[in-house]
């Protein structure tokens, strides 16, 4: 009986504590209902509508829309833009995070602000900037035209705009991580005889890999989905300068709803895959730290004495 009694009183105490920190059932259920309705109307319904509209005229229309040459060209261009922008920003981001996180230099805070610029500027404005610089009437336009280099209304412009818009994702993800980890492990590697590259690939990179992957996933999602900046520099030349988002808009404006939604469903699928990948990465990195903490507590519970070790070593 003696063992049951404290248990029961503990249960009562925790009930009372729970009462003290929560609202009544009525409030709780209405808040949950509001959240569910909101999510349903603004997230799940649109997603369902995308797939429903895409398949409204049957599976054959759906696949025909995806197999159409213009659609294939748009998909290819999107993959090219992302395929160039993501690796570039991966390198830029790691380099920027390395410089900002590990070193002190003049103009550091200015550089951080610059990295954030693409977040602050409307994508349409960033697109316009490229038109003003590289366009025919732009700063470098005449020179580019005389050398027969086409940037605006061509693939290079689309890639440039995508790189610019997605620039902050990797760097932003890594800077706090690199800063928190400090320099000591790198210094240790150097004193142990590692070269700069060895230190980077064997020490720095493994420590930031989850953050890096997370940044790349977000960067990729944005690179494939970018509309505003790309729209300004693209010129909407069918099968040549249309990316998926631009292709969807054209189809939609032409009242071809089923094909528009079919291509849109691809982007929606990409979003779902991104979310899934993001969750897996988050879960993985959390798992890792949790497991290490678990071991750490177990370790402190059974400390080994060193006095015997010292005696043996001598």
């Amino acid at each position, binding site marked *: 009986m003696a063992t049951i009694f404290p248990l029961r009183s503990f249960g009562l105490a925790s009930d009372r504590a729970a009462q003290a920190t929560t609202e009544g059932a009525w409030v709780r259920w209405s808040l949950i209902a509001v959240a569910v309705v909101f999510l349903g109307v603004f997230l799940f319904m649109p997603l369902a509508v995308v797939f429903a509209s895409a398949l409204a005229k049957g599976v054959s229309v759906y696949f025909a829309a995806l197999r159409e040459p213009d659609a294939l060209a748009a998909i290819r261009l999107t993959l090219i833009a992302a395929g160039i922008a993501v690796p570039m920003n991966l390198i830029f981001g790691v380099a920027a995070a390395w410089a900002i996180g590990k070193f002190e230099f003049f103009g550091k805070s200015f550089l951080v602000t610059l990295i954030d610029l693409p977040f602050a500027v409307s994508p349409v404005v960033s697109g316009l900037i490229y038109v003003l610089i590289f366009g025919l009437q732009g700063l470098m336009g005449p020179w580019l035209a005389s050398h027969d280099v086409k940037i605006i209304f061509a693939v290079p412009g689309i890639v440039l705009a995508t790189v610019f818009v997605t620039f902050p994702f990797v760097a932003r993800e890594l800077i706090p991580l690199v800063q928190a980890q400090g320099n*000591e*492990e790198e210094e240790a590697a150097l*004193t*142990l005889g*590692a070269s700069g590259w*060895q230190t980077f690939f064997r020490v720095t990179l493994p420590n930031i890999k989850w953050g890096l992957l997370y940044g790349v996933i977000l960067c990729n999602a944005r690179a494939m989905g970018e509309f505003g900046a790309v729209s300004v520099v693209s010129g909407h030349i069918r099968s040549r300068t249309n990316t998926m988002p631009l292709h969807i808009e054209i189809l939609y404006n032409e009242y071809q709803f089923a094909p528009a939604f079919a291509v849109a469903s691809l982007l929606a699928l990409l979003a779902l895959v991104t979310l899934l990948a993001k969750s897996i990465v988050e879960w993985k990195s959390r798992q890792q730290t949790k497991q290490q903490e678990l071991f750490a507590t177990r370790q402190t519970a059974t400390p080994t004495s*060193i006095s015997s*070790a*010292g005696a043996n*070593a001598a």
Partner: protein
Amino acid sequence: MSIEANNISKRFGQFVALDNVDLEIPSGELVALLGPSGSGKTTLLRVIAGLEFADAGTVRFDGRDISDRTARERRVGFVFQHYALFRHMTVFENIAFGLRVRPREARPSKKQIQAKVHELLKLIQLETLAQRYPSQLSGGQRQRVALARALAVEPSVLLLDEPFGALDAKVRMELRRWLRQLHDEIHVTSVFVTHDQEEALEVADRVVVMNHGRIEQIGSPEEVYNQPATPFVYNFLGNVNLFHGRIDGGTTYIHERETGHVVYVRPHLLEIDRQPNGGSHFRARIKHINAAGPLVKVEAVAEWGDPVHIEMSQERFRDLQLIKDEAVFVIPKDVKVFANHEA
């Protein structure tokens, strides 16, 4: 390998971390750099390691000028205060790191690496934990792994930056005795930084006392403790009572017609008695008695109003039967007088 640092100066912006420092460490010695935070001891260690470069001065290993060499080229073993173990590698991989990153022609074979790591694991008594990650180890174990990692590359000198600073008192004591034993075994020239005077006095062959980017005194633990060269050293190496006074014809006068002299007396060099006993003495009143520990600590007020700290053995305390607020005579057994009173 001997270490020589000549005229080392280093600034961080306006802050002078090292001000024309000269230091010579003979081969095979275990030397402590001792000083308060901001005294430049860690900076000096990092300059020797090549992790920091001096604004002026030279560093020599065995007479060779290595001032322009990077940390990588100097082949020093460096142990960090917070271990700096590679968190994504096992204990085994951490220790093997320095061997694995060697250029192909100098890299030992897999078997040799394995043998070397196991030899070091044995040395640090952590053979069973080879596959653990650093986060799964206690602080003391981590620091031993860090030491083994540094020793794996067979460094010419071993540099330790506050190696026991992040550990709790008991582990710290065990580990520093172990370090001393280890050094007696492998005889690699070692320099460690500490702000703990007890640690420096107990472990080191020689102690370098630093303050404000300068070296105050270099000497054996006995020398710096018993013959402090400056008021700072006297003050830093243990508790001290500080009286103003003057010197006149070889006699020290405390608190009489002061001439800017400062008299330093360690608490255990003051004796309490109920009689003046003929020799030097002053009067005091007992304020507080703390009898916990090997020594009884007595706080008294001198006749001129300054507090005086006195330490005595438990036996002496039992013989005297001191009580609070009692008036007694204090007899200094040994004092040290410095002319300036900057300490």
